[in-house]
């Protein structure tokens, strides 16, 4: 088993998968804590579905790089949902539901009607569930992932206190002179970027797990925001690394393996948290 693993680790695409997977998992955990605390746990689902719809359009238009369309569309949806999502007529969760299902349906319809691939079902399946997509990343994609991850971590570290204030008490933050709108916009953009990258790791349908499980696990044992964020990042990185390694050894879908591992860790922490009281 160890020998086989060492043999697999010699392949460049496995190394790229591990690097990208760990970076994506770490950034997902950082932003996942914010989303969970603000009650936007399901936003990942909505944005990933919007990204799927954009990806379908990009495929039909035969763009050489899908992210040229997927990233801006996802960012736009994030801004709509997180900044301007609520109105008197349509509440925030209803807006999320509308965006989520309509973009998913539109994307699937477009991919079937204007099919540009010989295996539409396979393309849809791998995009939705991330079975092997992390193993098919190019060097350019990993570099972009690295840049985005560094940007996310840097912003999170530099603006940690302001993000903390905006997350827990917007009114207090506004009263303190913090430009709440600008920071909310920044968080929305970062979430959109991370979700687009995370689609390669766990697929569109399972992104919520990557955002939510590590954060919830950390919150069972840590009471402080800083502790929860750091521990969530550690758990997420371990989950991604273990999931990728296990899946290539056991030939299981990568995305589902990572999510199930995170789920197991969550239940373990739930028990520990209950015992500690």
């Amino acid at each position: 088993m160890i020998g086989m693993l060492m043999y697999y680790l010699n392949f460049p695409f496995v190394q790229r998968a591990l690097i990208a997977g760990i970076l994506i998992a770490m950034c997902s955990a950082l932003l996942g804590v914010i989303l969970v605390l603000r009650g936007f746990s399901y936003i990942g689902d909505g944005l990933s579905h919007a990204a799927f719809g954009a990806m379908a359009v990009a495929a039909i238009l035969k763009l050489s790089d899908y992210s040229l369309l997927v990233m801006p569309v996802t960012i736009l949806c994030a801004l709509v949902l997180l900044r301007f999502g609520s109105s008197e007529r349509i509440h925030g969760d209803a807006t999320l539901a509308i965006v989520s299902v309509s973009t998913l349906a539109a994307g699937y319809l477009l991919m079937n009607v204007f099919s540009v691939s010989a295996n539409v079902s396979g393309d849809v399946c791998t995009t939705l569930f991330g079975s092997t997509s992390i193993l098919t990343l190019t060097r350019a994609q990993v570099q972009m992932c690295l840049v985005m991850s560094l940007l996310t971590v840097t912003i999170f570290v530099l603006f940690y206190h302001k993000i903390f204030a905006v997350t827990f008490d917007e009114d207090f933050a506004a009263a303190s002179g913090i430009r709440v709108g600008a920071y909310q916009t920044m968080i929305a953009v970062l979430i959109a970027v991370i979700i687009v990258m995370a689609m390669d790791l766990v697929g569109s349908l399972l992104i919520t797990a990557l955002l939510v499980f590590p954060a919830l696990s950390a919150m069972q044992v840590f009471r402080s925001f800083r502790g929860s964020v750091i521990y969530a990042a550690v758990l997420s990185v371990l989950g991604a690394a273990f999931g990728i390694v296990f899946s290539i050894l056991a030939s299981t879908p990568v995305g589902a393996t990572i999510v199930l591992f995170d789920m197991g860790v969550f239940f373990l922490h739930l028990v520990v948290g209950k015992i500690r009281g």
Partner: protein
Amino acid sequence: MTHRYQCKFTIKIIAVLSAFFLLTGCGANRAVSRGKTGNKVEDTVQGQIQKEKDSSNAADDTVKAQDPEPGSKSQTTESSGSGDTGNQSQANADREKLDCDLTTMGADMVYANVFQMMTEPERFVGKRIRIAGILNVVSVDGNNYYCCIIKDAQGCCQNGIEFVWGDGSHRYPDEYPGENTQICVTGVFETYQENGGQNKYCRLKNAELSW
């Protein structure tokens, strides 16, 4: 009272988790048996490959042209004339050398490797590759193209490599196995273009086919 309630709640949680893990343990047996089934396929393929190696080693010892054994359908592709022992030895040496053996890898790794071959073919040109999958024949403009198709772990995504059995003189369907037959192909990776077209295709040339 509160402490007793917490203890009871904790015991209930542990009981539920234990039941969950026990159930997944039962499921894991089925998963293992499915895995064993997959390994049975691999074992069969490996067994046939070993048979082919043994028969080719026997030919090396006697320096005779290979005769197909009863029940064995493997064919060699080295078309060196009989009596040309130098070329035969070189061909046998080439046959043994394998740069990438996909038959020893899991489904995810095989799929990812084939994907790399399609997206970065220049890294694999000239390399001797072995792959196991199912036979798929595509006819285009009266020409038959033979492919070895593999699936990823979920079975929904497929990938494959075209191959040319030997010097391409084998007749279809008389000498080929039926479509969707489990096959093992060993050949040298190359890229080519057709009729001066711009598209580049990948395939395994001088391939050995066994099933």
